[in-house]
């Protein structure tokens, strides 16, 4: 068992050495060249695929670290929206990749892996080969194949030292038995040291979670207050009025049937109005189509409600969790309403898809564009930009680690893409 582990560690070490010397070195130098090409423009084309390749390369190493030594190396790539089509989208995407600290960590690790990583990985194999050499050498020396050779610190010219060679070989093999798995682990520890995000980033992540949680709590408290107010001033008041009318009717029904009949009509109107108000309230809390059909059809129903033609494409193979579904629905609703109000558009479109564990919805319009996503803390509207509630939307999505990307050149068209990491469950039971 132990021997097997030692041999496996040796073989894996040799494989990793080769990979580090060739793969890491190649990726590192190519990325450097690509970064150097940024000023002349070509780098914007070559860098994103190289970074993506490096990520996959590092991810593979993370997997091996876990499978071979049980070491977990956390992966903390920032969630990125899919690049928008066109050159500007590519540059934007490249910029996002370069701003992600994980990208730079991986680049540094490539260099370390090439040097220290390959060396530590090489040792287990070296120990095994060296140990066996201690047994093979004396035979070759006695047969006269080798005359002048140095085995570690033993010389072939001295028969005593030749006799000691197997002893040293055995010692080296014993060392391999003890140290090989540990050496392989050391290789991955080096990788972990350079790939793991520093504590400061974790702290930032915690701060972000705290912030989004506050936002979520604030938003739901505000929502509850609004519902309470609406019920209090609306349906509740109408029911009181109805009860009063019914009481009066009871008193009048024999004395003044005509008047009683009039009041019955009024009570009916009150109940109809109460129902309408409740219906609108329900739509604002959780739209019935969303409950009945899910996001797909809810967005289609929403599109039909818009005063402008809205083309809806894409189908989701299942349903996201209810909170995600609701957040996505209200985001789309707000984006469409915004476009109708401010964009001066003639048509709009919505595209939905779910891929690689992410729900992605794009909402576009052919309006005047110029919508900007204000940077945090700079207020809602920027110079010349269309006033937008996008910041609030981003906060709402933030609760689900969702993100928002806006492409809206002045003159249009505007394309807002939102992405929420989520799994789909329970394929729809609906037949349509």
């Amino acid at each position: 068992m132990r021997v097997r582990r030692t041999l496996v560690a040796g073989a894996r070490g040799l494989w990793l050495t080769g990979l580090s010397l060739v793969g890491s070195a190649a990726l590192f130098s190519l990325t450097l060249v690509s970064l150097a090409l940024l000023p002349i423009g070509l780098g914007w084309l070559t860098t994103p695929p190289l970074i993506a390749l490096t990520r996959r390369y590092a991810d593979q190493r993370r997997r091996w670290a876990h499978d071979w030594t049980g070491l977990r190396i956390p992966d903390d790539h920032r969630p990125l929206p899919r690049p928008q089509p066109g050159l500007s989208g590519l540059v934007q995407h490249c910029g996002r990749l370069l701003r992600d600290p994980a990208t730079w960590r991986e680049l540094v690790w490539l260099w370390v892996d090439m040097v220290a990583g390959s060396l530590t990985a090489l040792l287990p194999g070296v120990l095994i080969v060296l140990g066996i050499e201690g047994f093979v050498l004396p035979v070759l020396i006695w047969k006269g194949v080798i005359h002048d050779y140095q085995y570690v610190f033993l010389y072939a010219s001295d028969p005593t030292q030749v006799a000691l060679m197997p002893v040293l070989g055995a010692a080296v093999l014993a060392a391999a038995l003890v140290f090989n798995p540990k050496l392989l682990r050391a290789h991955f520890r080096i990788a972990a040291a350079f790939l793991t995000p520093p504590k400061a980033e974790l702290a930032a992540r915690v701060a972000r979670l705290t912030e989004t949680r506050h936002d979520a709590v604030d938003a739901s408290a505000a929502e509850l207050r609004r519902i309470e107010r609406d019920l209090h001033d609306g349906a509740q008041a109408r029911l009181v009025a109805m009860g009063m009318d019914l009481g009066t009717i009871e008193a009048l029904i024999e004395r003044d049937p005509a008047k009683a009949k009039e009041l019955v009509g009024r009570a009916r109107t009150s109940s109809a109005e109460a129902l309408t108000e409740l219906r609108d309230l329900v739509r604002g809390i959780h739209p019935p189509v969303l409950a009945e059909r899910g996001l797909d059809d809810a967005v289609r129903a929403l599109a039909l409600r818009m005063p402008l033609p809205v083309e809806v494409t894409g189908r989701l193979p299942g349903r996201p969790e209810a909170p995600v579904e609701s957040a996505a629905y209200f985001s789309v609703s707000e984006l469409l309403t915004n476009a109708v109000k401010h964009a001066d558009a003639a048509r709009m479109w919505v595209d939905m898809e779910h891929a690689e564990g992410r729900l992605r919805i794009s909402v576009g319009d052919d309006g005047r564009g110029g919508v900007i996503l204000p940077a945090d803390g700079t207020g809602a509207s920027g110079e010349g930009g269309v006033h937008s509630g996008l910041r609030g939307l981003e906060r709402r999505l933030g609760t689900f680690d969702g993100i928002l990307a806006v492409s809206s050149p002045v003159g249009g068209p505007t394309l807002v893409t939102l992405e929420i990491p989520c799994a789909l469950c329970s394929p729809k039971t609906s037949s349509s």
Partner: protein
Amino acid sequence: MRVVLAEDLFLLRDGLIRMLEAFDFEIAAAVDNGPDLARALEEERPDVAVVDVRLPPTLTDEGLQCALAARRARPGLPVLVLSQHVEQLYARELLADGTGGVGYLLKDRVFDADQFIDAVRRVAAGGTAMDPQVIAQLLSRRSRDRPLARLTPRETEVLELMAEGRSNTAIASKLVVTERAVAKHTSNIFGKLQLPPSDDDNRRVLAVLAYLDRG
């Protein structure tokens, strides 16, 4: 006239049964869930079905799906769908087969017994009963539509009532005009919207709805 009724809330189901019976309908079956409704529609072969969109066990659009499936099995089976909310999306699905005998109303409409019973009878006879809210949604969507903008306010009123599925006689009494006047308005409307004229009430309604739903 035999009715199959599907409504999961006891109070509403009870009220509907009493109302329908008061107007001489025979309740063939009154059920409170989707599977029972499917079975009742299959076995009872009613003259008309009154169905709530949302039914157990899934509490999604089970009732609507049942109604649509039953109409696929038996084209033209009269179905009046009731709901707490109306959606153009659902209306479109109900009207898609173009065979008529379809109603889609807000539950509020049962407040007015006469109107509601009129709608049930209309649907049972192969006509259409669309909720005014559906029509309002359709019209507001087409507010930029040129042919629609050319209608006079009176013609728009007639168009709305016609789209709800009402006959010329009903429209005339509602607007307090003569039937001849309504007939004149309708032919004007069909002219302006460039729809082929038709004397058949039902086909006329479907043509208007199809026009409004386009685009």
